[in-house]
């Protein structure tokens, strides 16, 4: 028998969703202040309207659905899903008022892309967008990288019991310290320290490259946010290709890789265990898959004969592969260069990198190196079991912060999520082909969206069919939530409709 959620359960979900909506309204203070600072009055008005709407409805929701009932894990997963839907709609309001996007669906696409740290966009005339609107894009991607519910956990949900469901629902199950709110605070501490160090480095690089002081600081902070949150948004339509600078590329590479590391690995490296970086199952798996896929990409580029000089090929290939594998989406080539010059082998290598993704409990997307490592170890264990004597007990171990034995449940869980990812990659590719795009192009952009990467070979454009835009929005959301929260919401709706 399916148990229908009670009125109290529904109130709980609505109450916490309203809290997140209020938080989204407060986040709009930053772009509003930026617009006012640069005398962008129209943009300031857009954000004023968006902020008032989110605050009014958020506070009204908190008053109307106020409850002292305890939050349980099952509520947490549903709250995360409903919060992301509500946050997307409210955060899209300033985009819709700005007139830079063709429809409200396009606005939701860009917001979902920002919050999920994907980096694909339908915004038009990016090179002339006001500072305030650009600030909003990067705030969305930075907050989304850490998790909007992690943000709310840090600032809005203090002292609320049962918050682990909220934390886990956003695809971060790891506890850096026993307390979930403490873990959320450490995640923000790491991000803020990197924000300071990375923004100074980026701004100095841009100043050195000849940008003015104001643009150096703003673009430095924004590009840091785009890199560390593995978001891939840039303030120019040519993305990072616009800078043509080896030093700039080196700094963004370090920040992209740092953003794709598990926060637990960061914390270990920062608290006296720097060797963790070289022992961890995730970093080792990432190093192996990155190197192997770079080998495949190099073979493809050599066959295509695009870059006669080895170092030029290495520079382009390494940047694009790291950008794809960390699921950032920064690019140092034109989108169509992938199809026209790089060819199918190199494109398939990047699709593989995007599909696999980087570390769990990081800002990165994709299947995640931890699952890839565990599945590989599970295969090896199966082979060892086949050749071992009948009475032998074959075990497998892995290192993640400490040495652990791999359980069947862990391998099964990793396999389940991987199958869900691969199925979604296939479904979204099929939809792209049905919309009239070539198979490889559809696969490239489809996998890019679902793995929250943001590289594009040209499919994502304002003129793409609305059905495909909608599918990409759902794909980005599913990939970021790692399916469980979305499945929980579907189950919740089903139980509400059919339960007893």
């Amino acid at each position, binding site marked *: 028998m399916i148990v229908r959620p009670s009125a109290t359960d529904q109130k709980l979900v609505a109450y916490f969703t309203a809290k997140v909506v*209020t938080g989204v309204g*407060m986040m709009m203070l930053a772009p509003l202040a930026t617009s006012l600072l640069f005398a962008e009055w129209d943009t300031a008005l857009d954000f004023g309207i968006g902020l008032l709407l989110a605050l009014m409805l958020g506070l009204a929701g908190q008053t109307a659905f106020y409850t002292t009932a305890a939050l349980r894990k099952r509520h947490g997963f549903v709250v995360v899903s409903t919060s992301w839907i509500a946050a997307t709609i409210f955060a899209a309001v300033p985009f819709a008022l700005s007139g830079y996007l063709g429809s409200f669906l396009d606005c939701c696409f860009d917001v979902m892309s920002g919050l999920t740290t994907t980096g694909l966009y339908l915004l038009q005339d990016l090179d002339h967008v006001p500072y305030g609107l650009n600030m909003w894009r990067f705030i969305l991607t930075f907050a989304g990288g850490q998790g909007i519910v992690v943000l709310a956990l*840090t*600032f*809005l949900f*203090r*002292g609320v019991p049962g918050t682990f469901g909220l934390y886990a629902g956003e695809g971060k199950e790891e506890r850096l310290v026993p307390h979930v709110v403490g873990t959320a*605070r450490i995640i*923000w*501490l790491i991000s*803020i*320290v*990197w924000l300071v*160090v990375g923004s100074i480095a980026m701004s100095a690089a841009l100043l050195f490259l000849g940008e003015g002081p104001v643009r150096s600081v703003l673009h430095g902070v924004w590009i840091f946010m785009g890199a560390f949150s593995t978001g891939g948004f840039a303030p120019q339509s040519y993305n990072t290709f616009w800078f043509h600078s080896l030093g700039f590329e080196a700094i963004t*590479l*370090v920040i992209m*890789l*740092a953003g794709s*590391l598990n926060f637990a690995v*960061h914390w270990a*490296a*920062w*608290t*006296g265990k*720097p060797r963790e*970086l*070289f022992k961890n199952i995730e*970093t080792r798996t990432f*190093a192996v898959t*990155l*190197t192997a896929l*770079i*080998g495949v990409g*190099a*073979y493809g580029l*050599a*066959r295509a004969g695009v870059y006669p000089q*080895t170092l030029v*090929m*290495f520079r382009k*290939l*390494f940047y694009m*592969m*790291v950008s794809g594998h960390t699921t950032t989406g920064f690019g140092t080539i034109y989108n169509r260069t992938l199809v026209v010059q790089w060819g199918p082998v190199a494109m398939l290598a990047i699709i593989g990198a995007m599909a696999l993704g980087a570390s769990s409990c990081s800002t990165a997307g994709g299947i995640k190196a931890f699952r890839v490592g565990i599945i590989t170890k599970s295969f090896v264990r199966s082979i060892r079991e086949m050749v071992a004597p009948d009475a032998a007990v074959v075990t497998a171990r892995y290192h993640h912060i400490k040495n652990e034995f791999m359980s069947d449940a862990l391998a099964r869980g990793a396999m389940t999520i991987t199958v869900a990812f691969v199925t979604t990659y296939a479904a979204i590719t099929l939809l792209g082909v049905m919309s009239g795009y070539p198979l490889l192009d559809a696969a490239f952009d489809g996998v890019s969206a679902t793995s929250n990467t943001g590289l594009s070979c040209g499919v994502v454009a304002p003129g793409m069919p609305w059905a495909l835009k909608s599918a990409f929005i759902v794909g980005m959301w599913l990939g970021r939530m790692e399916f469980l929260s979305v499945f929980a919401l579907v189950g919740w709706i089903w139980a509400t409709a059919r339960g007893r």
Partner: protein
Amino acid sequence: MLATISRTARALAHDVAGVHDDWREFILGIGVEALFAGALALMALATVQLVLWVAA
């Protein structure tokens, strides 16, 4: 709610300000993370060289 935000922001600011107590470890941590990126770049360069050598 504003009191909660203010209290947490103060606590987070205290955490960030407290970084200077452990700044050597934090800088070492960031340095090792940059070293990790460098090691990956070297591995990638060696791989590209190897592939080009074999393909030739």
